[in-house]
């Protein structure tokens, strides 16, 4: 046995290890490159929005200035005018009312629906569950025409309460679907233990399932919040007076007059409108991610 015979496989092993490391480095570099491109691509519009919101009308209109920086100093004029001379605060208040009501209605309906469909096996429960999801697949751009008839029939045309009625048609199916999956991932021994401990179905839901499924419920809540905060088609179709309008449509319709775009105020309005979801996401992000990846791994 010579030393050369010994070192050959050792060298090969060393080579394999270094190529593994090189492989990993390439994978990392590639991911960083694409992540940075992705981040830049998606952060440009918000950045543009923020920069423009703090510019004066004169600077926005001036063709010679660099649109990416604030050259003439930061001004809060856009916000002041937006909040004092337009209906922005009304839109904001309406949106908050609509969103809170929609989130509340959605959570009550879909938690109860998901619990019964996911845990209390009964005849037709799986067909019903699929049926609920199918209703989510019909786009709102198609649904608003028949819904118009319904909203008109119940006398809620041009009232933000009409939105409280129609938004759940978008939020309930999806939230129910998310939570059915979440409830089903909870081991059945847990409800059996609760049954033996003496819990009724309602107690089982409130004392065991809701706390255990909280990440899923928060994920569903964020979804319902986002949908109703950012909905555009329904308010566009069903609301037409300013005192009933919500943020999305209100900002656009009141700040674009014919071909005059009040860019500064539009951006200031967009910034204020985007703030609540941003704050909520920042606080609930961990829950949201936990909810979306539920069941991926055990425990």
């Amino acid at each position, binding site marked *: 046995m010579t030393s050369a015979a010994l070192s050959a496989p050792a060298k090969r092993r060393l080579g394999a290890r270094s190529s593994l490391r090189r492989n990993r480095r390439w994978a990392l570099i590639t991911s960083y490159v694409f992540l940075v491109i992705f981040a830049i691509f998606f952060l440009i519009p918000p950045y543009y929005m923020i920069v423009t919101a703090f510019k004066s009308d004169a600077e926005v209109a001036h063709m010679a200035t660099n649109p990416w920086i604030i050259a003439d100093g930061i001004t809060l004029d856009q916000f002041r005018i937006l909040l004092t001379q337009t209906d922005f605060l009304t839109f904001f208040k309406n949106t908050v009312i609509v969103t809170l009501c929609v989130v509340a209605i959605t959570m009550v309906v879909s938690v109860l629906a998901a619990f019964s469909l996911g845990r209390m096996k009964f005849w037709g429960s799986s067909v019903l569950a699929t049926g609920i999801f199918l209703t989510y697949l019909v786009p709102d751009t198609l649904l608003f025409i028949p819904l118009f008839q319904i909203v008109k029939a119940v006398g809620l045309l041009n009232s933000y309460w009409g939105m409280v009625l129609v938004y759940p048609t978008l939020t309930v199916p999806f939230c129910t679907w998310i939570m059915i999956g979440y409830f089903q991932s909870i081991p059945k021994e*847990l409800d059996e233990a609760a*049954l033996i401990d*003496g819990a009724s179905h309602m107690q089982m839901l409130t004392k065991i399932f809701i706390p255990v499924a909280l990440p899923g419920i928060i994920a569903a809540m964020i979804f319902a919040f986002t949908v109703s905060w950012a909905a555009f088609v329904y308010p566009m179709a069903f609301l037409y007076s300013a005192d009933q309008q919500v943020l999305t449509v209100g900002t656009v319709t009141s700040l674009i007059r014919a071909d005059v775009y009040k860019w500064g105020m539009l951006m200031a309005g967009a910034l204020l409108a985007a703030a609540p979801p941003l704050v909520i996401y920042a606080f609930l992000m961990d829950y949201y991610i936990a909810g979306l990846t539920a069941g991926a791994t055990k425990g």
Partner: protein
Amino acid sequence: MAEVALRNVVKRFDEVEAVRSINLDIPDNEFVVLVGPSGCGKSTTLRMIAGLEEVTAGDIYIGGEIVNDLPPKDRDIAMVFQNYALYPHMTAFENMSFGLKLRRFPKDEIKRRVDNAARILDIAELLDRKPKALSGGQRQRVAMGRAIVRNPKVFLFDEPLSNLDAKLRVQMRTEIKRVHQMVKTTTVYVTHDQVEAMTLADRVVVMNGGAIEQIASPHDLYHNPKTRFVAGFIGSPAMNFIRCHMEQNGAGLRARISDKISLPVPASLTARYQPHSGKALILGLRPEHLTEPRRSDRDQNCEFDITLDVVEPMGMETMVYFTVDGQEICGRVDPGSAKGPGEVMRLHANMNHMHLIDPQTDAVL
């Protein structure tokens, strides 16, 4: 405290009969273990007693009362599950007190009971922890605590040790036995592990294919199995089943297992097996009764030479495997006397512990 009785209990899932008309009487405070291979209906039986499965036919009595239509919470039972089924968002204390809280027990009574159970189970310092922060064994203790605090008529255990590693399983087994001695309560325990069954039970119920094969004390089950299934299921390694021909040998009998080997039936058993003379039967002999020739009073006629196929040293003893007439047979010999594979070894069959099985009915004769 109560007795449990099952009368002609049947459970059918659609077309499949999971439990076939079983009868079982469990007196007050007895520890009964239902044991059998997976799918034998033992868990279903337990779940029917718990009220988690409906009974298709027959009656279940707890404390002399038919409970067929009572929901689980009104049966006054407590159950420990295989995967613990602890509420993940509650601390150990809250887990244990949940049932009492739902039954509106006063706060100080709840505290007294939980503390008492925690003392019995040695988990007093873990009461503030959530299940996530507990080890498997600790979780199972909390699950047992949840059962104990309720002070139920019947404890039900559904394979409670299957999720634990081997060492912890042995520890918890002793723990369960100790708890049962301290908290005397009628207990029904389901397991597929025959060692658990033998060590824990006052009486063992061996189930197979939805029916009860035999109900007996562990000792009885081991020494007097009623069927081939029980004989093969209880004991590890399993009993050897060897085809044999019962031959008349003067006044005595001999079990011929091959051209060369024929073992004499002890005089004490001759009368019992006499009617089966001349028949092809199955000789049941446990590995521990196939040893190297040991005692001075051994019967030379029961010795024979074989060639070893496989040798498994276990430390305390050595398992030897050999083939007779195409049938693999296992013996259990002293490590000092074991030979290597391929070598010839002399073995002694202790025929006083023999069983004879009718291959047609699988009944032990």
